[in-house]
């Protein structure tokens, strides 16, 4: 057991650390999504030029071929320094790895480079209005027409669809096959009249994600990834990819938030002292620290296990569940500490910390829904880790 970094890992961390310190462009602009995306595109170009885009990708495809620990180090360090996200998060984390794992040589040659540069943004067309947790029940149809497929249906919760050139689309190509079969994974060109996106406004007032409508949209047969009828297996790879990197980024982010929460407690007057002297708040903050530590240590334990076995196990679901719980608790506690001021949000003269905790509180409501609801994660854990019987 050794919970420290090896000399080569330390060297890698120092390299990441100093490069980020010299190159990261500061906080994202407090502006509309268009400006933010332009900012992120520029940042991604810089990342790519220095070889930091797609660090988990094999070198032959333009990546860095980093080990899982190096990915974790990079994610933790980038978050610690509050570096912006790259523009093409979904392309880097999911699209590229899927093309690398299942794509043809032509597809690799065509798609990978513009993912790395951020020139082409990717989005993910999985969920539908009637197929959320039960993804395999999706109804969007793709019908063969010569060497093309004609796609009709609707996708939802499609992050950055409004900026995307390519959509990782899972559609039903065989309505008679059992539901997990009969699905096919396509790369759909979003730039056509038959594809319409409409932003969905979230409870935060923002519109990160969209509804996407396909009205006889065309996708060439050459854009099938992994073969007709294999869509489910290909989609699952997508979901498994870069878990390690994502987890460690998420943990660093929570550590940053916990630091800010402690600061808020120290600066908020309470009972003649500050909230940091209040026994109730002290207990709550300590418990959050303890939970974050267990999550971090679990993630390291999981990483060791994954490196031994080569594949991430279903235990990863525990981390995602715990992350959502902690993030929600943390922002709820911030609002409790703010007391009556907790109603004031961004734009209010007397909002505490610029209203950032109000935004955080609202945004974190989605944490237990996005990327697999906590309820579904518990099912996965019960069935696949504990081996309990399925209800269905």
């Amino acid at each position, binding site marked *: 057991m050794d*919970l420290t970094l090896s000399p080569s890992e330390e060297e890698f961390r120092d390299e990441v650390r100093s490069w980020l310190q010299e190159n990261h462009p500061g906080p994202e602009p407090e502006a509309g999504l268009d400006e933010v995306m332009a900012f992120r595109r520029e940042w991604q170009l810089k990342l790519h030029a220095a070889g930091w885009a797609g660090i988990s990708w094999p070198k032959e495809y333009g990546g860095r071929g980093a080990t899982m620990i190096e990915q974790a180090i990079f994610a933790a360090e980038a978050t610690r320094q509050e570096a912006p996200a790259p523009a093409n998060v979904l392309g880097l984390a999911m699209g590229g790895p899927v093309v690398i794992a299942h794509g043809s040589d032509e597809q690799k040659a065509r798609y990978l480079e513009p993912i790395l540069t951020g020139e082409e943004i990717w989005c993910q067309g999985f969920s539908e209005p009637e197929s959320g947790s039960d993804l395999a029940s999706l109804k969007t149809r793709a019908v063969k027409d010569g060497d093309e497929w004609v796609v009709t249906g609707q996708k939802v919760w499609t992050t950055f669809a409004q900026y995307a050139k390519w959509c990782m689309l899972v559609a039903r190509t065989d309505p008679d096959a059992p539901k997990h079969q009969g699905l096919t994974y396509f790369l759909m060109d979003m730039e056509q009249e038959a594809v319409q996106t409409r932003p969905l406004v979230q409870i935060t007032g923002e519109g990160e994600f969209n509804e996407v409508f396909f009205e006889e949209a065309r996708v060439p047969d050459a854009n099938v990834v992994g073969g007709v009828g294999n869509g489910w297996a290909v989609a699952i790879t997508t979901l498994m990819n870069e878990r390690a990197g994502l987890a460690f980024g998420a943990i660093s982010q929570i*550590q940053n938030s916990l630091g800010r929460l402690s600061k808020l407690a120290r600066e908020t007057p309470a009972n003649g002292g500050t909230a940091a002297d209040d026994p109730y708040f002290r207990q709550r903050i300590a418990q959050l620290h303890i939970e974050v530590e*267990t999550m971090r240590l679990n993630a*390291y334990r999981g990483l060791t296990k994954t490196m031994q076995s080569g594949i991430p196990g279903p235990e990863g679901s525990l981390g995602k569940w715990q992350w959502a719980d902690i993030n929600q608790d943390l922002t709820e506690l911030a609002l409790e500490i703010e007391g009556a001021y907790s109603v004031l949000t961004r734009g209010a003269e007397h909002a505490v910390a610029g209203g950032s905790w109000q935004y955080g509180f609202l945004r974190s409501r989605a944490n237990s829904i996005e990327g697999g609801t906590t*309820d579904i994660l518990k*099912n996965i854990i019960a069935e696949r*880790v504990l081996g*309990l*019987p399925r209800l269905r």
Partner: protein
Amino acid sequence: MYFDLTDEQQAIRSTAHDFLASRFKSERLREIAASESGFDESGWKEMAELGWAGLALPEEWGGQGLGTVDLAVLFEEMGYALAPSPLLSNTIAGLALSVGASDEQKERWLRPLAEGELRGTPALIDADGSAEPMQFSMAAESDGDGVVLNGVKTLVMDAASADFFLVATADGGRHIVEKGSSGVTVTPEESIDLTRRLSSVRLEGVRPEATLPGSGEDYHPVFLRACVALAAESTGLAQRALEMSVSYAKDRQQFGRPIGAYQAVSHRCAQMLLETENSRSAVYGAAWAADAEPESLPLAASTAKAYASDAGWRVPDAAIQVHGGIGFTWEHDLHFFLKRGRANAAMFGDAKWHRERVADAVLAGESAPAAS
């Protein structure tokens, strides 16, 4: 970065697992729990032969010289098996002797303790004082001929089966008092936990056999290791209660299905797994810190003890709920797990006490400690 047990540690685990499973079957456990002494002499001898009495004690004094991670492995298995044994109290006494005793004292007390020939236990909490960790009120009075001890130590683990006590005094010192010394009276206390005996030890004008030269601060790392060992034990309790629940939920049928198919039950089991795994990670993180990064041990040990204190009884509690009525019967073993977990939670600082230590560390600095 490598967060897993070594092959040697795996071997300790499997030896401990198999030995304890064969030695402490439910019927035997109940016999020991119902017995006058609550102690299993033959089991102790075998543990001593396996080297467990001195597992983490220095080799030069008869121990195995292994680390806190190894100790955590062993105590996780002790909890899993619900082993009634003075091994924990003996280990804590041994660790205290290794840091606080003179060579002469080590030769006389530590060596036989590490070899399993003598058993020691710490006598810490004053009946008339605070029950908080490391707060002692008994005075180390001196009458010219040496130290004289008066007062009552309570919540002393395994006093009946111990040969000597390590008595803490207000100055932070430790004194060796043999159980048979004049002026020493041991009175058993009824504990909810039938697998670990607690007693009061009354000292009336007792002259200790020896006073250790060590100071109060020397024993702080021992306290922290004791917290880690106890947290490891609680993790083992949680693991066993989880396994019992999962197995029952697969087996027990209601409304024509195994109850584990119902999400009200399966999600409860998932929660139990989460708490058990978190507990384990916190324990091994702290155990590793004890061996490799002592400066981070205080925070890591409090993190582990706080988390495992909660999980160590909440998971068995949830297990009783999964089992329904049968889980509430004396006949079922689950109540022993709940009780041991509850007792572990209260000893060496409860969750609230340790959270306060964590709050001190977290709220003092500019931010939470960053990941490496």
